[in-house]
């Protein structure tokens, strides 16, 4: 019992010593709390989720079917992304302006779009840029895709407008068909076979004209129905009615039918025509932009709050900062003892490796905990970052991140020969964390074998767990939490083994 108590006293020597040394550097403590807070504060204040507008120069041939106004309209319909600078027919001059940085983007219209399309080929809009940032290059590629989408939509819209104009003519034909039906009915009822046949021929010619007209305009309604997932006759109501109309009209010319049967067919024909009329009216009532772009999307979250970009990054910053504090402080801790010479004192004294590490672990965890508490309070109460979950769970994750980071740091410290080596190794851990922990990009964007690195970094676990707790209000994933502590335990054992060797007698 006495030995255990004395062991705690020996460990406490480091606890006090490390804390006193840190407290003697108030600027360091202030920087560690206020630095990240101010960075996040300025980020939250200065970040606006708008894409960069690109000064765009268009290149179009003088004989282009697209006029300058069309081109400007296409660009401006995308929003602020494209700032119309002008239009020119000199592609070389436009590209020179791009090289000189006078414009950000040059869009070259297809030279002979009509011919390409007639030859069953897509006409190509070429987007020239001078970017080196892969994200910006992707952005321009995406912008090109959007731009061509707008152009295609405009073309379709003009088709729809034309279809609605044609529908007016179709209405006249439908009215004539109604009149022929009514006249034929009267002729049949009065037994005037000659007149009935004449009206029947008129009706047949009306139905042919309707078939042709409907193919252009009302066919769009059928497409809509099919896109909507309908099947069978419901999938193409216009086509189905037309087929029905043709059959009924043909029956009217069947000489084997008696009068009553022909009258019944005539009623059906009349109904088909009425149906087509109502469909036509429906088609005409739809605005062309809805016809060519009938669907749109809406994004809604089932989460209790919708985090801002600041909210999303705040906990990643917290996890990364705690990892960096843990790794750096621990990494410098033992290497400094060795360089100063205290290690020789420890070798002669009854101090064990476990006691030295225990003292250092506790002191740095207390220090890291205070930093985490202060920073979390500033985030939640000053920057109003949401905290939906349980603070105890939150604290448990903080403890895990610090514990594991310290293990990595102590291991670095013992294998390093100098301060600069320890700092270099710590920087490598930091750099790895920035790229592999999901801090700037999702883990899903990494190949699975590469994710092994991610799952060795405390920031990866810290970021995922803290976000789940704070932004989703969830309990921490015990698998992640277990993984975090397991890695911490492994590094603690490694550092303990190495420390034992360090304190032991030199050969």
């Amino acid at each position, binding site marked *: 019992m006495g030995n255990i108590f*004395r062991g705690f006293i*020996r460990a406490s020597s480091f606890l006090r*010593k490390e804390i006193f040394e840190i407290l003697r550097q108030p600027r360091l403590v202030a920087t560690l709390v206020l630095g990240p807070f101010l960075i996040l504060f300025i980020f939250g204040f200065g970040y606006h989720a708008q894409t960069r507008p690109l000064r765009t120069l268009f290149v179009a041939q003088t004989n282009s079917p697209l006029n300058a106004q069309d081109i400007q309209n296409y660009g401006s319909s995308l929003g602020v992304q494209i700032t119309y600078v002008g239009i020119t027919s000199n592609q070389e001059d436009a590209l020179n302006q791009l090289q000189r940085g006078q414009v950000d983007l040059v869009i070259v219209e297809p030279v002979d779009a009509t011919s390409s399309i007639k030859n069953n080929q897509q006409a190509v809009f070429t987007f020239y840029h001078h970017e080196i940032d892969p994200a910006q290059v992707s952005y321009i590629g995406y912008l090109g895709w959007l731009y061509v989408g707008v152009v295609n939509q405009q073309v379709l819209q003009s088709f729809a407008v034309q279809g609605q104009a044609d529908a007016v003519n179709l209405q006249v034909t439908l009215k004539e068909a109604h009149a022929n039906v009514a006249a034929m009915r009267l002729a049949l009822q009065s037994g005037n076979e000659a007149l009935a046949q004449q009206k029947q021929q008129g009706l047949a010619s009306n139905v042919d004209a309707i078939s042709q007209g409907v193919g252009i305009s009302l066919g769009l309604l059928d497409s809509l129905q099919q896109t909507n997932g309908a099947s069978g006759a419901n999938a193409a109501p216009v086509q189905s009615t037309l087929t029905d109309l043709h059959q009924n009209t043909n029956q009217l010319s069947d000489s084997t039918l008696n009068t009553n049967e022909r009258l019944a067919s005539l009623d059906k024909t009349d109904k088909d025509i009425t149906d087509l009329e109502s469909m036509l009216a429906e088609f005409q009532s739809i605005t062309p932009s809805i016809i060519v772009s009938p669907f749109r999307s809406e994004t809604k979250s089932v989460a209790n709050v919708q985090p801002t970009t600041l909210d999303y990054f705040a906990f990643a910053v917290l996890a990364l900062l705690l990892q960096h504090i843990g790794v750096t402080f621990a990494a410098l801790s033992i290497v400094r003892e060795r360089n100063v010479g205290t290690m020789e004192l420890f*070798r002669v004294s*009854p101090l064990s490796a476990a006691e030295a590490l225990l003292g250092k672990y506790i002191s740095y965890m207390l220090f890291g905990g205070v930093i985490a508490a202060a920073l979390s309070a500033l985030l939640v109460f000053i920057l109003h970052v949401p905290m939906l979950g349980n603070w105890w769970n939150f604290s448990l994750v903080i403890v895990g991140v610090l514990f594991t980071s310290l293990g990595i740091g102590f291991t670095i410290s013992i294998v390093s020969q100098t301060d600069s080596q320890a700092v270099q190794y710590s920087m490598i851990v930091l750099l790895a964390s920035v790229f592999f922990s999901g801090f700037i990009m999702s883990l899903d964007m990494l190949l699975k074998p590469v994710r092994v690195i991610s799952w060795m970094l405390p920031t990866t676990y810290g970021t995922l767990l803290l976000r789940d707790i704070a932004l989703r209000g969830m309990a921490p994933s015990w698998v992640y939490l277990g993984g975090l502590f397991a890695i911490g335990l492994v590094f603690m054992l490694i550092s303990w083994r190495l420390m034992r060797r360090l304190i032991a007698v*030199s050969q």
Partner: protein
Amino acid sequence: MKKKGNLIPVEKEIWPPVSPSEEDQPQTGQVNDSVISARHLTKKFGDETVVQDVSFDVPRASIFGFIGPSGSGKTTTVRLLTGVYKPTAGKVTVLDHNPVKLNRRERVGLGYMPQLFVLYPNLTVWENLNFAASLYGMSLFRGKRLKEALKFVELYEHRSKLARNISGGMLRRLSLASTLVHDPQLLFLDEPTAGIDPVLRRKFWDHFRELKNQGRTIFITTQYVSEADNCDLVGVQNNGKLLMVDTPQGIRHHTYGGDMVEFRTAQSFDFNAEAILRSLPFVRAKTVRTGPSSMRIIVDHANTAIPELMGWAQQQKIQVKSVEEYLPSFEDVFVELVRPEVNHG
């Protein structure tokens, strides 16, 4: 400081030296009171031999001075004795145990003051001392003990100052206090007086003697050969080899082949008289002229030779101004001692 009344009082009759040529096994009786015992201790780093075949014993409650020039292997020897290094060959026992295998309880009996200040500049004097006390598992109620240690090295008034803000001498005193705070039985002090002024050096030696009087054993290394006179036993180390272990007086005697007497006459001393003087049975062949009427004579024993010299001068009708034992400075002794080594080298 806590006085250890039960420790053996220091005696002036010092432990006879053990030279490498003597028996490997220390003599019975002497070994029982030996705190440190080294036999054929050798340490090599690669091909370089830093400590070579060193043997000596350190009796309890004594000050053992380990003297040698810089790079002579003193610090390596201390590290071998404290268990920091494992010997390449030979055997060493400290407090009757192999220092490499000392358990924790046994390690509490050791105090080690490294050559350089190895504590923390950002901690105060008190905090540094408290850290050292904790390292040895001292009770939490140790405030009184810390205060005593600081008063002993006259640093109590400076206890609130940061270590980085105190002088080099104060840092050495703080190191000493940190070494003493847990009341060790055996102290290893590696060049504790290096780089400090003579006044502070004297204070340190006063401290060491006080510690010895309290019953502690001190193994101390120093470059200042003049400090050897403060030790009970002195080991002279050069180029990794232990040249001699003896009392300071014994070393002087051994170095010059006897005691030295300063002989001054009223008139000039002629060469005939000097030749006769050299032929006297108690006079060693060597005499050193220090002036026309003075010389230093090496004799077997100064206390018996002085009356005989006076008688001889009376017989020769030589008017004597003074005859007294001359103690050469330890610097001179050291130079004389290592000269054959240097010449050989």
